[in-house]
């Protein structure tokens, strides 16, 4: 192929321009990578809806249906190969743009996918028992433990009285000295 001097100069300038353009801060289209297929699923640019805190708050309450166990927001910003979470995110955005409130969006998801779409069961009805049961059980057990300990200490006290004083001899010390002795004893490693 014959290239005249003018054509050569234009080509060189265009090439340099392209290189410079690519390396400048956000000033032009980014170059293609050699092997796009090995970089995972191609993505679209981040939209305002993708980083909207209100949408994120809703999505954090809803489970992704891909089986990852994560909420929609975490899944779509973690497993970028997931084909479910982008669609679910788009659904949230679409419902919001229809003018639905956060609760209405969540209700719409529950109506469509069932209660298991929620990251945690709603705090009402039987599920409220589910939330409270462990804490109530611990409190009841604590109460039972207190009563048992009280009974034990009473038994111990009664046994100590029945056994009589451990030391029968007179201790020649003032109450202040005895208190000091007790403090010193308590300081010893147990």
């Amino acid at each position, binding site marked *: 192929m014959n290239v005249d001097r003018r054509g050569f100069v234009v080509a060189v300038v265009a090439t340099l321009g392209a290189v410079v353009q690519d390396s400048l*801060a956000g000033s032009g289209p980014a170059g293609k990578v050699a092997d796009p297929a090995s970089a995972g699923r191609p993505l679209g640019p981040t939209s305002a809806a993708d980083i909207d805190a209100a949408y994120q708050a809703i999505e954090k309450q809803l489970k992704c249906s891909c089986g990852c166990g994560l909420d929609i927001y975490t899944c779509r910003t973690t497993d970028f190969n997931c084909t479910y979470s982008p669609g679910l995110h788009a659904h949230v955005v679409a419902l919001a743009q229809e003018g639905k409130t956060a609760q209405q969006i969540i209700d719409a998801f529950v109506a469509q996918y069932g*209660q298991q779409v929620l990251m*945690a069961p709603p705090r009402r009805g039987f599920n409220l028992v589910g939330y409270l049961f462990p804490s109530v059980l611990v409190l009841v057990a604590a109460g039972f433990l207190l009563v048992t300990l009280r009974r034990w200490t009473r038994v111990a006290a009664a046994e100590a009285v029945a056994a009589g004083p451990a030391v029968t001899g007179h201790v020649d010390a003032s109450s202040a000295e005895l208190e000091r002795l007790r403090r010193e004893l308590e300081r010893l490693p147990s």
Partner: protein
Amino acid sequence: MTLLGHLSLWLALFVGLWGAITGFAGGLQGRADLQQSARHAVFAMFAALALATICLEVAIFRHDFNVQYVAAYTSRNLPTFYLWSALYAGQKGSLLFWATVLSLFATLAQVLTSGRHRAYLPFVAAVTCTVATFFVLVMVFAANPFERLAYTPVDGSGMNPQLQNPGMVFHPPMLYLGYISITIPFAFAIAALLSKKLDVDWLVAIRKWTLVSWLFLAIGLLIGMWWAYVELGWGGYWAWDPVENVALLPWLVMTAFLHSVMVQEKRGMLKKWNLALVLGAWLLSIFGTFLTRSGVIASVHSFTQSPVGYFFLGFLLLAAGSTIVLYVIRLPLLEAEATLESMVSREASFLFNNLLFIGLAFSVLWGTLYPILSEWLQGTKVTVGPPFFNLVNIPLGLALLALTGIGPLIAWRRASIPNLQRQFAVPAVTGLFVLLILLVAGMREIGPLIAIGLGGFVTATVFQEFGRGARARHRQYGEPLVLAVLRLVARNRRRYGGYIVHMGMVLLFVAFAGMAFKTETQATLRPGESATLRSPYGQVYTFTHLGISQYDALNRRVTAALVDVSRDGKPVGRLKTEKRQHVDALGRNTFEASTEVGIRSGLREDLYVVLGGLVNGTEQAVYRFTINPLVWWVWFGGFVLVGGGLIVLWPGGGSPAVRRTQAGYAVKLESKQ
């Protein structure tokens, strides 16, 4: 080699059965020949299972893809490091690993147990042989790691990229070692029940084993958290996944035991409780194994659903049934030898500590099983994710943290009011001072406020205990304070090692609290473009996308994105995050492209950068930028916790006072008999 491996499994099965029968019979009848035979069976079983493991490793390293397990979990170009971990990357291999390690522990228990506790050993041999034989049985009849394919693939499927991480090489074996080693204390507990020798002897025999088990579980959990953080890319380290939860359960129960056993050793109380904790911890470990391997609960960690689950369910029910029956029969022999003298005593605080540990374990178990329960009782499938667990467990965890500080401040037997005032003054003031500083600094989140405030209280407790002990040595022996601290720890490793563990827990709780202030954003950037993110401390980080490079490395094609980071305009460094497309030896893709996170870890916060992907195959990249406060302290807290555990575990030590107390209790027991 696979034939030899398969034959070894059969040999292990028969030898294990023999060991179980002769162990129980020899122990119950007092026949020395049977007892000796059971002991030899334990050794022989270990030899057979070790041989089977070697055979599988040889098949893996020789790329014998005719073996289904080798073809399913490895490939020719899998790095050697991960060929080792392929042994436990799949269901069948991990069962073999489990059985082999259990037989190793069983052998060590036979060899290392002192002559004083020899009476338990036939039963220990029987129990360990029974459990190991069950695992071999599962392999032989449902999950044979040496199963051959009808054809030989040119290359294997390769290992899941998320398992190709150093964390995954160490996390499963550590957790398994923890799970498996619980079998030894359990075996001694059963031996004590069967032999009716239920004094402190069996507790002394298992002391090291319980610590080993607790330590391995702790290390396994911590490495698992680290792996989740650096590999999974969601920016956290604990997701309350069912499999994570069931690994936590035995650790919680063992921690409760490590506290309550001190009450039995010192006062002869809580015999029934301690025994129940050891038995419960083992049953929970088997329950966890069942849950992981049955697919009964959906989890990202689960092995695929297989008939193995039914084996484990059957074994679990059988083991639980027989254990409970034996326990109930022996209850009359487990009466306490002393009673509680005061509600305000170390013993009482340990009881409440145990209540919270078990309450927490129950709460985790409850949340894990709640989806099944809900489906049974109300016919509704529900998801129980982090919001549920955080709501239910955080208050219990904080109460436990408070008791971590309160317990050591209360004297044994009875604490007086002046003693309480003297002990609590400095820690309480420190905790309140920390709380005040946080409030003045503008923190208003109630959970982190309480966690960090309590952290201050417990830290002061620990330092006070060290300070008093060191000053006492300094006064008594004239030792410099640093030497006094070192000798203090060396002379009473259990007590001061325990305090170091408490310090590790404080660091962990404070670090967990830090995650409440996590901030993140997502951005699509061309080379040269930047995104900014404000840290919880008010500084502004700027992330500038420098460009994309692609290259081949080992068994993958890498797409690497480079990000320049500055804080308030000052350069901080560069981070690299990758997409990895793993390939086999023929260059074929083996899995979907995975993500490698770029992390810059600091004392205050971690910068966590994830390359989501590229826009239309160009250098325009989609990123997620996250600032995770205090994550470094999770790992440091983990090191402190493990370090404290190692100090407790280290042989020797023990102050004369402690030895006297325990010796006194032993004499008291002997005089009663």
